[in-house]
């Protein structure tokens, strides 16, 4: 029986005269809990899945081809659309690629503005991820609380750069707007207000027995497998690998800031299960608060953008920039041929790798677990298909 491009052979077993048959379900692309347009062809025996074959490409806009058509500055708003849940990191990736190719030195204050905007965006992205994960497991209240806190950050960033989701805040050579007067105090007040709410969220759902029972020991990925499949970010740190681009391949002003890297310790099951990936995100939000406090207090004076020609033509060459996005180490391989249009721009994202491991991880899980696994990888459809 073929399901649009999937010749899935049906296994029939005849045990004790009773012939049973696999059930083939198409979950997605329009399904309440596949985040965005993802599709899985699930071969299941009743509730227990034999295999879930991912089928991607429903949100493929070929952003990499668009990069070759619009110029260096023109591509910046498109980078917001690569991962619209954490757009600041994509802006930062493209800006750093342009700066590294042309050898532009970015002023100190703009680096601080970038880190502040990026860390706020990381909290936003993690809030959406933990909120929708709780909703996939069945609890609706944590989602609205997470979204309510996210709304405050939306307002802050709206005041900073005028947009709530697709920011287009950074430019090659710095940032487009300086911090408005009075914004710093508002941001600090928000961080003070937000930190205790993480503990309240934990009390509400993270250590709830049903929640830990649903997530503990589900889809365990060892450190070796995670590296083998090139998992990155919270998915990698959930498996116990203490690696973070901000600290191991330092960029921007992260070396001057002190923050530590939360790692999965298998407290509710084994290292590398769904709960570890989830709890690493919760703790990363606390770290982001710590970083934000240091950056907001230590904001240096000075210009926020370097002198960059409007018709920007970097010398020919290629560069590989790595940014620690909310979904892990995002690789920007950009090739320039000296003209005003980039020759090639390849974006390697965390969700793409996480999606490729689902087929292996989903063997004899239950359907309800597949939903938990998808949520624990924090997949975002545009990042997979680009």
């Amino acid at each position: 029986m073929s399901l649009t491009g999937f010749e899935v052979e049906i296994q029939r077993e005849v045990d004790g005269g009773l012939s049973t048959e696999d059930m083939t379900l198409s979950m997605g692309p329009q399904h309440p809990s596949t985040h965005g347009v993802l599709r899985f062809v699930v071969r299941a025996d009743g509730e227990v899945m034999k295999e879930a074959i991912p089928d991607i490409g429903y949100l493929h806009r070929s952003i990499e081809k668009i990069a070759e058509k619009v110029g260096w500055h023109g591509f910046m708003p498109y980078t917001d659309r690569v991962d619209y849940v954490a757009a600041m990191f994509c802006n930062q990736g493209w800006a750093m690629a342009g700066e590294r190719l042309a050898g532009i030195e970015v002023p100190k204050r703009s680096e601080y503005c970038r880190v502040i905007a990026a860390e706020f965006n990381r909290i936003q992205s993690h809030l959406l991820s933990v909120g929708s994960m709780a909703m996939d497991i069945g609890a609706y209240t944590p989602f609205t609380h997470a979204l309510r806190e996210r709304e405050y950050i939306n307002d802050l960033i709206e005041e900073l750069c005028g947009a709530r989701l697709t920011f287009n805040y950074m430019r090659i050579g710095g940032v487009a707007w300086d911090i408005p007067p009075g914004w710093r105090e508002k941001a600090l007040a928000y961080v003070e207000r937000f930190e205790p709410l993480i503990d309240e969220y934990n009390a509400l759902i993270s250590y709830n027995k049903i929640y830990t029972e649903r997530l503990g020991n589900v889809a365990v990925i060892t450190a070796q497998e995670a590296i083998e499949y090139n998992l990155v970010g919270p998915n990698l740190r959930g498996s116990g690998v203490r690696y973070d681009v901000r600290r191991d391949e330092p960029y921007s002003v992260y070396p001057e800031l002190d923050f530590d890297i939360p790692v999965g310790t298998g407290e509710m099951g084994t290292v590398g299960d769904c709960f570890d990936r989830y709890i690493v995100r919760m703790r990363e939000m606390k770290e982001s608060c710590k970083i934000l406090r240091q950056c907001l207090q230590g904001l240096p004076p000075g210009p926020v953008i370097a002198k960059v020609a409007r018709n920007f033509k970097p010398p020919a060459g290629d560069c590989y920039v790595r940014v620690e996005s909310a979904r892990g180490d995002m690789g920007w391989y950009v090739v320039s041929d000296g003209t005003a249009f980039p020759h090639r721009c390849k974006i390697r994202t965390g969700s793409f790798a996480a999606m490729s491991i689902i087929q292996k991880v989903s063997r004899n899980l239950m359907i309800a677990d597949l939903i938990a696994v998808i949520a624990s990888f924090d997949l975002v459809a545009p990042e997979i298909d680009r």
Partner: protein
Amino acid sequence: MQELVDRLVADGLVPGGIPLWACYLAAMLLFGGIVVFVFILPIAGITTWVERRVAGRIQSRIGPNRTGPAGFLQWLADGIKSVLKEDIVPSAADVPLFKLAPYVVITGFVAAFVVVPFGGPLIIADLNVGILYLTAVTALVVVGILMAGWASNNKWSLLGGIRSAAQIVSYEIPAGLSFLPVVMLAGTLSMQGIIRHQGWAPWTWHVFDNPFTFLAFFIFFVSALAEGNRTPFDLPEAESELVMGFATEYSGLRNLLFFMAEWGNLYIIGAVVTTLFLGGWQIPLALAEHPVPRTVLQFALFFAKAYFWVFVAVWLRWTLPRIRVDQMMVMCWKYLVPLAFVNLMGTAVWMVLFPAGLGGVRVLLCLCAAGLLGVFARRVVFHIRRARLTRQDLSFNPLSTARVIG
């Protein structure tokens, strides 16, 4: 109800010649009709409104407030909308079964109201097998859901139907086992009898009679939730996994019937729990001599107690995540059933050792329950203080609307 009819016949108010059984039948139908159309349908509707308002406040939003005062007529609007919506029957569905399923579920739900004791004389039929009849009738809901799951010819609905069959049937066992201690104490299966065995004061209630019935109360409430498909057991229509489970293909009036049964079931859970464990409609005799105000007071008290447990079920739904299918079975067979047996044996031994029960233990259990509530209240205050909320962030008015903008 029977004495009522007998007294009427005796007074000669009934035109002659009508045989006695016809009078009973007419009275039964009349009273049943009143209960269904005046009480059950509005209660099922109002519970949806209460649930959406409580869910709103729990999720720091408002809930429906546009239709009627504070959105009170929202349930009426939803009902009319569902009736007017097109009622689609999928072409490949097993049509007779598909059309029959919601009516099986509704009969199972409405039939349960026969034994619900609203007040002293206010009960449709005080069957002497009361609670047993109720357990049998609620099992009818499973048949309806399984029919719906199978007939929709949709793999997700099939999964939903099979899950609900496993869930409701297996949770009948702990529910049955945990109301047996109460039946042993009261000595009768009849609902009115069970209530009459308890007094109005908390320490005379069955829940505080001995530690085993105290535990039996919690087990009964949890398994009643499972039978009503309420979170954390809403697996049959798990939105995030099975889209809408068994009710995916239903629309229009049939869909309304399914969900009216679910919300109405909430009230039945509250009513049964109040009858069995919390003293039903018992009020101190001194309060009202004349039967009419006494019955009204009894009705009001019973309604308040039952509706508190509806609120608790709603509150649980908006706090807890969903259990997985195999965990649900493990919880039933490895945790609830053994504990229910322990309670059964415990109560039996307790009744042998202390035929009249121990007053001291009853008061002790009351105090321990009060202590639990105290610890809970302290924990709530801790959460409020930790979130650094100030006076004007709080508002105890359940219908309070929005903060000012900006």
